[in-house]
């Protein structure tokens, strides 16, 4: 339950930074935190109170649901790939437009 609350808070914080900040890299940082929040939400959904990891031979007792964990593994790697690519495009824009300010980048000269 606490993890779900944290996940939702992270999503809100990330989106808020994405909208308020003017520097594109700050926006990407906010997006990074928001996507981390969504991923944490999936893992929090998979958790059961007092559970141990879904590995054979760890003894009796409730286990966490393995499916969201597999989904989240994929989501983390995908998010890193999109982040690396967008950062590279920010570098290209910085070299061309000498600024990372979003208003500056939006002028379509």
């Amino acid at each position: 339950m606490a993890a779900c609350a944290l996940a939702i808070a992270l999503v809100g914080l990330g989106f808020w930074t994405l909208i308020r900040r003017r520097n594109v890299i700050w926006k990407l940082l906010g997006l990074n935190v928001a996507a981390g929040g969504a991923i944490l939400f999936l893992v929090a959904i998979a958790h059961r109170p007092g559970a141990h990891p879904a590995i054979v031979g760890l003894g009796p007792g409730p286990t966490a649901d393995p499916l969201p964990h597999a989904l989240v593994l994929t989501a983390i790697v995908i998010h890193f790939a999109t982040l690396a690519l967008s950062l590279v495009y920010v570098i290209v824009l910085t070299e061309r437009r000498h600024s990372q300010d979003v208003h500056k980048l939006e002028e379509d000269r």
Partner: protein
Amino acid sequence: MKWAAPMAVLGIVVLVAVGTWSLFPRPEVPPWEEATAVWGAENAVAAIVLGARLWDTLFEILVYAMAMVGVRLVLRPLWRTGSVPPLAETPLLRRAADVLLGPIVVFSVYLAASGHLGPGGGFPAGALLGSGLLLLALAKGADRLGGELHEPALERGEYGAIALLLAVGGGVLFFGWKGGSLCVGLNFLIAVEVAIGAWVVLHQFTRTRGEV
């Protein structure tokens, strides 16, 4: 439009909170033991990632590889024409790299090998290997290291790894290959592919940034 932004973010947060509220208490987890055993693994997550939902994993590897292709495509024209200024190698960094490199490689091989038995798997192993390579670059200077690891060969190696992964994936999907050794093989291929991808990104970044 001053009120629009806070309203939008607050709306999303409140709605998701309301939705989550009705999710608790959490229902019983469906049994997963024999489905894991079918794929010859003990770690259920590995059984899903490398077996049941291998179709997702193949696409995820393609996403990762294509991101690295995109990075290489975009940064090539920005390479610094001048010689890459030498790295201020502090003795601490050099010693740390030599000391740490051994355990990093051993631990990532362990992660890749035991991925289907315990926690671990191809992705963290590959990322760890990539960070280890970067530590090497920090210590020895990206340019000299780049020279040693011949870049085009790395690229072909990465594409080869992906083509092999697609072939093995096809085998699993159509001919129903199963088994622990298959998981280990897939894990190693993923680890190699992720490590080369991570190294390419970091190497490309250094070529446009002067030394690391």
